[in-house]
């Protein structure tokens, strides 16, 4: 094979690709925020005294965890308009990412709450603190610390999953690279470069998470 690599289309498309990285970040961060909201809400419902509510949450979590994101995003993409909600692909993708990440977040947060011993709660109550104070001042930080590693790896995964949003043409790195690829036919060059971009993106995300952790969770544990 006498194929010579030619990165010219990639270099020409660089500004577009860099902007698209911002799109990927936006999808990832909005998706994470929505996932956290769904996660916390889900955990609260999961502990409801009403059995049907608990089952609803369990069913939701298992449904999401046992089907591919690609199928989920297609489903949501077609379902929203039928429900009378007309959204652009990008917000649709954020909703899909949030729902997907939320299901995993529910399981992770639940584990964190369970990891806090009952004694911590009781010690706070015995000191005359209210339940809300106990949760905010005593439970929250150790619980967050306990789930932080799994939460961050889940969020890195969510960041990488944004590439699947290209299937509904949301604005992010993969869909932009597909456009450059189909214009130039320099498939390998484009995708190789973009893969490197993703590597940098996930590395940056990891550094941010680690930085936050070293600031916020600096207390020693046994």
């Amino acid at each position, binding site marked *: *094979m006498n*194929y010579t690599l030619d990165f010219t289309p990639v270099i020409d498309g660089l500004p577009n690709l860099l902007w698209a990285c911002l799109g990927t970040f936006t999808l990832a961060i909005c998706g994470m925020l929505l996932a956290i909201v769904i996660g916390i809400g889900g955990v609260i419902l999961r502990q409801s005294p009403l059995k049907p509510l608990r089952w609803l949450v369990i069913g939701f979590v*298992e*449904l999401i*965890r*046992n*089907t*591919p*994101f*690609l*199928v*989920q995003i*297609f*489903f949501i993409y*077609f*379902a929203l308009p*039928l429900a009378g909600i007309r959204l652009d692909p990008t917000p649709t993708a954020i909703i899909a990412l949030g729902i997907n990440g939320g299901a995993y977040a529910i399981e992770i947060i639940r584990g964190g709450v369970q990891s806090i011993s009952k004694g911590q709660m009781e010690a706070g109550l015995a000191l005359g603190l209210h339940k809300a104070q106990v949760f905010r001042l005593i439970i929250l930080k150790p619980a967050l610390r306990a789930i932080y590693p799994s939460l961050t790896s889940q969020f*890195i995964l969510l960041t*990488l*999953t*944004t*590439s*699947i949003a*290209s*299937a509904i043409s949301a604005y992010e790195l*993969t869909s932009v690279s597909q456009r450059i690829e189909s214009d130039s036919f320099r*498939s*390998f060059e484009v*995708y*190789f470069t*973009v*893969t490197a971009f*993703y*590597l940098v993106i*996930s*590395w940056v995300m990891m550094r941010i998470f680690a930085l936050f952790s070293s600031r916020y969770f600096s207390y020693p544990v046994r």
Partner: protein
Amino acid sequence: MGREEFLFLLAGLKWTVALSVVAFICGSVAGLMVALARTSGIFIVERLTAGYIAVFQGTPLLMQLFVVYYGLALIGIQMDAWAAVSVGLTLHASAFLGEIWRGSIEAVPRGQTEAAKALSLGYVSRMKDVVLPQAIRISLPATIGFLVQLIKGTSLASIVGFTELTRAGNIISNQIFQPLTVFGVVGALYFLMCCPLTIYGAHLERKFLTASR
């Protein structure tokens, strides 16, 4: 959605299963190599495998499939989509399984290796007879968890152009204009494959937790 359309989905399902099985088996073999290299104690080998793992864990599976698909063609290997996707998923699985198994190998207490060394067992016997049997047991829940990820990951083969379950769903959906029904059925089929595995994995995890207490 009629009988014919459903049969078409089932034909796609067949390929999803085939892809999953091939990628899991080949990925396991390669993953074992990765895990052994990662714990070899040889600095340069460990660094290289760590890099290999980091690349696959730090990039989207979709990109990995693209790069393998077009990269293979570039170096002169003509393959159909099915083979290319199998190679891509195998590499992907080898990195993830390698990392899972590295963790389990390291979770086997050091005393086990030391005892085996004291009994003058060589590396192969130490690994094969002492460490790996324990490591595999430890890794089982995470391995099954990854198998579920892999089955779901095969859906990305549809974007590369291979007709497995999700792409079959796309095709049918474009024919009969009932996307919700079609993707509902497609999702249900994935669910039927993955959910038993998830339940089994959770069961094993609980069992190990209580056993180690």
